[in-house]
């Protein structure tokens, strides 16, 4: 008969059996994931609003990550730890990511040296764990760069490339951020104004990328590397070399139904940078022959029309513009551009009535396109240019009505930004400087994240400086550019103007 004593022995046996069973580290991994999950949630609350970074909260978050490292030190995760290989790798990832988060928080708190020390330690401790090690090395270089310790940043970038090549066994999925390192460093030298070093580094980058192509020909990696080579020439404004590199790239790309983008870039460089319209035309005409039926040919036909326009053959240009509109009715983007170019061709010829008709056709048939946005302002510009003041006044009122309507209907849309920009441009054309300044101020206030913010600030600075005599406001506007984008070309313009205005001040 089964009694309670028998049940007791059964329970003890069960507990002993469970104790003997090994979980190969699954329990430890689960606990580590749990701690990391909660630390990560706290970390994300810090990242949501970078404008209100709280150092005290950051220290608390660091503490959460530190507890993970203390619970699972790297020394306990070696190959003799008894953990299953996958579990060990996952624990290393969790502890590595925790340490990288601590370093990042140190940097955001302004403790750059502490951040650097942590990154260095991670690089040393995680030599076998490639993804953590390479992230630590990359972050170290970025921290040096952000702290304006450029020579150390370059050394760190070079170490990244040496210790963590962009691929190991197969070239099918390279780490493109690492592949791009030489070009990135060269571009950084260029933006710092060190053209000589930039030149050296661009050549280094090309040598490195060429070695990648030689090692892995006819692979996606080779194409990626060749693309980066093209970019190095473009950044150095070596247009002939860029065109030659693009030609090589076009050959690498497997044949398909559509012409590769490399050919379009080639033709654009030939026409816009080298002034070689014949070669550009030849590239586009080859496209028409080799890729019949491709939807991308609308761009090629439009470009041929634009080349004819540049040559002065307006009838020939209009034929190609018409082809785009008729043969590619579903391609609204290219169609709007072709229609706009068609209108411009009539304007250029002096036939304003026909041009006006074509401009209005764009607004009716391609509403929402950039060309449709530009039309009211362009019409105003035409009347101002030709001294037709009454018509200019009418066009001005009409343009303001149209643009204000766009902004009011959907203030959060990209179209609203365009509308506000053109309101400002319309005021500028009519030399209404106070209204132009007000419109630009409104634009900057409502769309601070827009990519067009810097040209808007430059324009506003000019209005304050040259037309309204408000030197203080002009200085403030130029200084805003320096604060927002200290390494942009606009910063150079702003710095020059600040210098000039400060010298002129009593």
């Amino acid at each position, binding site marked *: 008969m089964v009694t309670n004593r028998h049940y007791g022995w059964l329970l003890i046996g*069960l*507990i002993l*059996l*469970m*104790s*003997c*069973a*090994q*979980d190969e580290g*699954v*329990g430890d*991994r*689960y*606990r580590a*994931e*749990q701690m990391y*999950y909660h630390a990560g949630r706290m970390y994300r609350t810090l990242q949501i609003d970078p404008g209100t970074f709280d150092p005290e909260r950051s220290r608390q978050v660091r503490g959460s990550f530190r507890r993970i490292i203390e619970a699972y030190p790297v020394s306990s995760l070696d190959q003799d730890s008894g953990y299953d290989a996958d579990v060990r790798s996952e624990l290393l990832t969790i502890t590595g990511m925790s340490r990288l988060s601590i370093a990042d928080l140190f940097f955001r708190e302004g403790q750059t040296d502490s951040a650097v020390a942590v990154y260095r330690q991670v690089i040393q401790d995680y030599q076998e764990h490639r993804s953590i090690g390479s992230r630590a090395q990359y972050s170290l270089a970025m921290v040096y760069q952000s702290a304006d310790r450029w020579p150390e940043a370059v050394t760190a970038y070079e170490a990244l490339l040496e210790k963590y090549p962009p691929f190991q066994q197969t070239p099918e999925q390279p780490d493109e951020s690492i592949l791009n390192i030489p070009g990135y460093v060269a571009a950084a030298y260029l933006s710092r104004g060190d053209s000589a070093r930039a030149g050296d580094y661009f050549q280094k980058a090309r040598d490195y990328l060429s070695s990648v192509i030689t090692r892995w020909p006819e692979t996606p990696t080779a194409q990626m590397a060749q693309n980066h080579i093209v970019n190095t020439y473009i950044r150095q404004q070596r247009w002939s070399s860029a065109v030659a590199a693009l030609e090589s790239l076009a050959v690498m790309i497997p044949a398909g139904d559509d012409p590769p983008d490399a050919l379009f870039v080639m033709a654009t460089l030939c026409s816009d940078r080298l002034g070689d319209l014949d070669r550009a035309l030849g590239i586009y005409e080859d496209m028409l022959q080799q890729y019949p039926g491709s939807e991308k040919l609308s761009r090629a036909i439009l470009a041929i029309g634009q080349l004819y326009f540049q040559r002065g053959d307006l009838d020939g240009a209009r034929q190609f513009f018409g082809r785009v509109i008729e043969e590619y009715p579903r391609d609204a983007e290219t169609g709007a551009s072709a229609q706009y170019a068609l209108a411009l061709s009539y304007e250029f010829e002096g036939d304003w009535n026909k041009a006006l008709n074509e401009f209005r056709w764009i607004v009716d048939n391609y509403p929402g396109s950039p060309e449709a946005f530009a039309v009211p302002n362009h019409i105003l510009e035409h009347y101002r240019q030709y001294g037709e003041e009454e018509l200019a006044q009418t066009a001005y009122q009409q343009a303001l009505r149209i643009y204000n309507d766009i902004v009011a209907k959907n203030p959060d849309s990209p179209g609203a930004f365009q509308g506000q920009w053109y309101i400002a441009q319309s005021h500028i054309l009519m030399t209404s400087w106070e209204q132009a300044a007000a419109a630009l101020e409104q634009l900057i206030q409502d769309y601070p994240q827009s990519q067009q913010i810097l040209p808007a600030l430059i324009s506003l600075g000019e209005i304050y400086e040259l037309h309204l005599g408000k030197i203080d406001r002009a200085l403030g506007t130029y200084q805003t550019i320096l604060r927002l984008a200290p390494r942009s070309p606009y910063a150079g313009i702003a710095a020059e103007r600040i210098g000039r205005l400060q010298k002129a001040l009593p």
Partner: protein
Amino acid sequence: MDLVARINALLWTWIQSLRSVKRISLFFPFLLFAILQAGLLLLLIFFYLPPISGLLIPLIRQLSREPALHYPQFYFFLPGLFSQINGWLLNPLIGWLFVGAATLMFAGWYRQGPVRTGSALGGALRRMGPLFVVGLAEWMVVRLVMWLFRYLSASVWHWATQSPRLFLVLGFFISIVFITPFAYTAAEVVLARRSIAGALRGSFALARRNYGLTYLFFAVPSLLTLAMNLVFQYAPVIVTRASPGVLVTVMIVNIIVTVVVNFIIVGSLTAFYLRATE
């Protein structure tokens, strides 16, 4: 019974069951079972701690595969794991004890006699053999039916994967069809003290004469459980949008809801059984 009489019987039974709510001690068997279920939930949540990790990690790996051994993905699978272990272990091995005890206590209450948890549990234990066997028989029939329903044809399975919630709802109603004949087995065993075969015969006969009523005694209160099961289909959403803690809270609420649902079902079945046989 004609339709009016059946509706009368249905309403009368539920009123009897709901009236018995004021006798708190009638909840004790269900609360004891709920404590066991809460203990199971706690064990699952802390599956990673030794010594239970040695047993639970392989079990979870077997039931829900490797992703369930990670945090917070474990909580995506927790409702399903709990349901499986509850359904395969707690219910068939020990659920019969609490149903038997509750039946005895409800009978005492309806007969205006003594209602003592201890003596009811003792009474159910004394009839443990037949209670366990009839409970196991019901459990096996329902499992077999659900297995057939799931694997009947490739088209059924394809439809089920397209709409898992619809599959869950249909499975719910179909399973009650096969639970209904076993509705009065506990009462036959502990109140009428019949043998296994006698209890099955008696229950089948009574259920057949009152199939619709008996089906509704199960189905209507169980809609609450069905609603909770539908909520658990969104476990990943609850975990990622809220937190694992919220999901655990919902599961605890489900255990409490199950107490209420079982109370109403056993109370109704016992009340109807007594009315039909006395």
